[in-house]
């Protein structure tokens, strides 16, 4: 029974983190149709800025975290304005965007190396302490991560479903021509998408830096996981992405608990390869039409 609870707790924790990372990629794929290879670097920006605010400027926790999130959102916006806006509509957009975001990610990662050095840094958790539930150790930081993630998903859902700009993101993703005919400025919409997805990646970076450590290469693994979740969730479907995040999180946690931590990643990737071979549109993908 302890194992089961352990796996469920771990799965929900992982799923929350993967979801935060993956939704940004999903929104970007849905509206811009590109893979943002700088997503992991935005995660870094969030983590490092929050760390700096907390440890060097000695701000309280909440404003520091907020600064991290805002900085990552801004960085997303900068990438969009400086790079992506200039290559929109080109025939080789997919390739060019991949190269551009790869370049941006190298610049950010090596910038982190220059400023902070290669030594790993750890953020103190926002809440110290833990308790035991059926023998499973549950940390307050873990609960915070789950709560923040779920709240973000709900807020994002409301934003996408209720607000003018949120609806317009969906409209652009689903029918670009009609969106333009309704007077929706597509470039502005793309900028909103990049800022939001950057902020979400930054949020993941802020929250996770106290669980894992912060290093100039620390953004890669979360990004690969996010890529996995995004594609698995059917590319561009927010709902599918959230389901896929928790499904993959749970799968990983179960593999970890029952087969040892060494089995988790290979098991996950093997499972994914098999899924891609037998179900090429993703676990929750509803085909090309369904985007957000």
């Amino acid at each position, binding site marked *: 029974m302890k194992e089961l609870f352990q796996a469920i707790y771990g799965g929900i924790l992982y799923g929350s983190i993967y979801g935060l990372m993956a939704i940004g990629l999903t929104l970007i794929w849905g509206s811009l149709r590109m893979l943002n290879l700088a997503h992991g670097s935005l995660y870094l920006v969030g983590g490092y800025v929050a760390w700096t605010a907390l440890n060097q400027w000695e701000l309280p926790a909440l404003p520091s975290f907020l600064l991290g999130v805002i900085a990552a959102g801004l960085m997303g916006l900068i990438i969009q304005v400086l790079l992506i806006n200039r290559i929109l509509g080109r025939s080789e957009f997919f390739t060019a965007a991949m190269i551009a975001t790869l370049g941006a990610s190298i610049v950010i990662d090596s910038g982190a190396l220059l400023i902070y050095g290669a030594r790993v840094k750890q953020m103190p958790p926002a809440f110290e302490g833990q308790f035991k539930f059926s023998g499973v150790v549950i940390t307050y930081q873990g609960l915070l991560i789950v709560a923040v993630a779920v709240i973000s998903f709900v807020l994002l859902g409301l934003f996408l*479903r209720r607000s*003018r700009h949120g*609806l*317009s993101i*969906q*409209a652009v993703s*689903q*029918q670009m*021509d*009609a*969106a*333009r*005919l*309704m*007077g*929706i*400025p597509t470039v502005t919409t793309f900028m909103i998408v990049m800022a939001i997805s950057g902020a979400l990646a930054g949020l993941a970076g802020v929250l996770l830096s106290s669980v894992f450590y912060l290093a100039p290469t620390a953004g890669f693994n979360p990004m690969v996981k996010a890529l996995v979740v995004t594609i698995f969730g059917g590319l561009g479907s927010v709902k599918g992405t959230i389901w896929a995040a928790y499904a993959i999180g749970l799968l990983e946690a179960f593999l970890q608990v029952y087969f040892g931590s060494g089995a988790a990643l290979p098991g996950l990737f093997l499972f994914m390869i098999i899924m891609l071979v037998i179900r090429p549109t993703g676990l929750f993908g509803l085909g090309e*039409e*369904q*985007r*957000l």
Partner: protein
Amino acid sequence: MLKVSNLHAGYGGSEVLHSLSLQVGDGEAVVVLAPNGHGKTTLLRAISGIIHPTAGRVEFDGQVVSGKRASEIVAAGIIHIPQGDLPFPEMTVMENLLMGAYRPEAWAERKQRLEQVVELFPVLGERTNQLARSLSGGERRMLALGRGLMAKAKILMIDEPSLGLAPFLIENVYQAIREINKNGMAVLLADENADHVEGLADRVYLLESGTVVKEGNVADMLRDEALLAAYLG
């Protein structure tokens, strides 16, 4: 109100519209008649800024709008209801309609506008929470018209409202357009045949190969069956 003068436009080097001119007055309903492939859709796309005209100009309410971005043209009060409806498939009917009211002036009044649209198309009111992709062809057309009405525009440009519909639905659609026009909205209709324009449009432009070959009022034109047969086949 809308004045198109000597408009040239096309796609990637091949010109479709050659020096096309036309006008639509305040609250007027005008129809552009031509068989497929003579530039109706291109004309509407060039006016709404989806493609940029290569020469000539479009004026609306005294200001030049040609060359501006699509969003600015919508903001000026021109709404283009595209051929094939192009609904947002994974959004509900309600969300589709709300997107029609994207411009801030319209968004502020979205509740009243929704009521007006639902009054005109009761079927949309019954389906507000249904995804647009689940609608029938007729309902989708209503949705496209309703979405266009949400924008608080001064002129609606409608591209082939009868396309792909069953005959009994077509009558409903034209009835609705007539109603819209009666409420004071100017309408520029692009159509393939003259069957439904009587009692709807005031004036007609006949297009051939991307330019106006004949203009006149509807009653005169429709009487001239030989002329219509020659152009529309």
